């Protein structure tokens, strides 16, 4: 499998809040994203998940190390890496269709083509009937679906998703997990997905990386295939209640809680 994006010894330092010294948000991170991978980063707040995503997106320059996209160093954001944000970040003066075709419009794609591509992806996320709706009349889940369709319409190699389901209610969230997986299977993008939820991470990932804070680093990595089991059976509840799913869930939870317990003042 070809490597799409690779991080080599990437570190990010911020000045500390009290002005004394620096905070290492990312410490010497090595990570490869290969074709068709669904990589999920899991970890407590402050473990550097979002910093990692921002570095890959090009919103943040690493203090040291390099990030390569197909052997070319990443210097800033670009349409080869689509981003779905935690809060939808749609443009409220555009309707659903206009938001979805916005990226192609920026790239100067002809109107007919960008409309037809935008409509394809709106259909993929199930929003064909809402083309003309203003953003503020959509529910939170629908807004995130527009955000996903918008990112996919630009046809990036890689999709970066920063806790995209974090603000949704539990029921919408489970539906959206399946929708994101279906869209991933359909479009074959490399996905980097951040979440707080262990269950969500296990269910969706082909590779799970567990991160830990101070300094932010990757402590554990698992290759898993629960999402493929979901594709075969179509039954998300059965996958999530299978014994090996539960066993791994408990293992990952104990890692995270174990770190938090050992994290107190010395």
């Amino acid at each position, binding site marked *: 499998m070809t490597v799409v994006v690779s991080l080599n010894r990437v570190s990010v330092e911020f000045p500390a809040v009290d002005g004394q010294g620096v905070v290492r948000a990312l410490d010497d991170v090595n990570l490869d994203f290969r074709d068709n991978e669904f990589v999920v980063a899991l970890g407590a707040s402050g473990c550097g998940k979002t910093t990692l995503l921002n570095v890959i997106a090009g919103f943040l320059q690493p203090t040291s190390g390099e990030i390569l996209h197909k052997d070319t160093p990443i210097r800033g954001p670009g349409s080869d*890496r689509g981003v779905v944000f935690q809060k939808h970040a749609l443009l409220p003066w555009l309707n659903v269709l206009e938001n979805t075709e916005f990226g192609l419009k*920026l790239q100067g794609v002809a109107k007919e083509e960008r409309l037809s591509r935008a409509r394809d992806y709106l259909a993929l996320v199930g929003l064909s009937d809402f083309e003309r709706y203003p953003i503020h009349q959509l529910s939170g889940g629908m807004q995130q679906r527009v955000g996903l369709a918008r990112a996919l319409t630009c046809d990036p190699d890689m999709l970066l998703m920063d806790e995209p389901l974090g603000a949704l209610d539990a029921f919408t969230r489970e539906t959206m997990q399946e929708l994101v997986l279906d869209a991933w299977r359909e479009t074959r993008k490399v996905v980097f997905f951040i979440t707080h939820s262990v269950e969500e991470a296990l269910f969706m990932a082909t590779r799970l990386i567990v991160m830990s804070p101070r300094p932010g680093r990757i402590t554990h990595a698992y290759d898993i295939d629960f999402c493929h089991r979901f594709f075969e059976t179509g039954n998300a509840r059965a996958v999530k209640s299978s014994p090996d799913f539960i066993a791994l869930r408990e293992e990952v939870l104990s890692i995270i809680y174990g770190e938090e317990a050992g994290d107190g003042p010395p």
Partner: protein
Amino acid sequence: MMRGPFRRRGPQAVEQYGAPGSGSGTAISAVTVVVLLGGWWIVTQLELIRPLFLPAPEMVISKFARIACTDHYLERLLVAVGGLAEVEAKCHGFSDHALHEHVLWSLYRVFGAFALATATAVPIGIAMGMNRYARGVFDPPIEFYRPIPPLAYLPLTIIWFGIGESGKLFLIFLACFAPIAINARAGVRSVSIEQIHAAYSMGASHRQVLRHVVLKGALPEILTGMRVAIAFGWTTLVAAEMVAAKAGIGVMVLNAARFLATDIVFLGIIVIGAVAFVFDLIMRRVERALVPWKGKV
């Protein structure tokens, strides 16, 4: 469908418990207006206050007819359609100008200065929001002059521009400039970093981000700034017209006060209020048409 404050509504919207100021205030406002006008009329009918201090409503109305030359223009209309041989009623107006001339001169000054201020303050405010050099250059002068009352630098505008129109325009321009520039700058700040990042990660150039994201995102605050600015413009109008203006609604009020013609003072105040109110209504319509998402995202 019936419109207005007394229209019957469909099923009442469920009221949020404890929502501050919930419910419609339109009918109550209508009552307030009726009570104020009625009180004015009763007080003057009973001659509780001398007309010098509070002229009766009908005095103001008859002054309106006289200064607006309603008879004169009615007869001209009749002559034009062939219903009358010649115009007999004379048009005296006030201070050698009919009411509409006063109004048009004032509108020209206020809206001319307002247009100049909008054309310059929006780009400068956007630049201040986007660029630290622009902010560094423009912030001190704007913040310095902004709280100074226009009457304080009125003499300076006379020294610089003389007593012609340009000085008046400049005074009103200054009053309108600061609120638009400050709101445009705040509007740039109100655009979320996620929206800007989203545009860049879809391949936008800096120029495209400015045009398609920042300018659109700043629009609600720019319009708010324009509404504030035009109110400041009307406030400054009377000060501007104190200096050797021949016609204008402000100079009409000032001259009338000199002759203790309180009814004309009232008329002028009502006209200024009415024009400003109508413009504010138009601006609200424009806001609803241009930024329907305001306050909803």
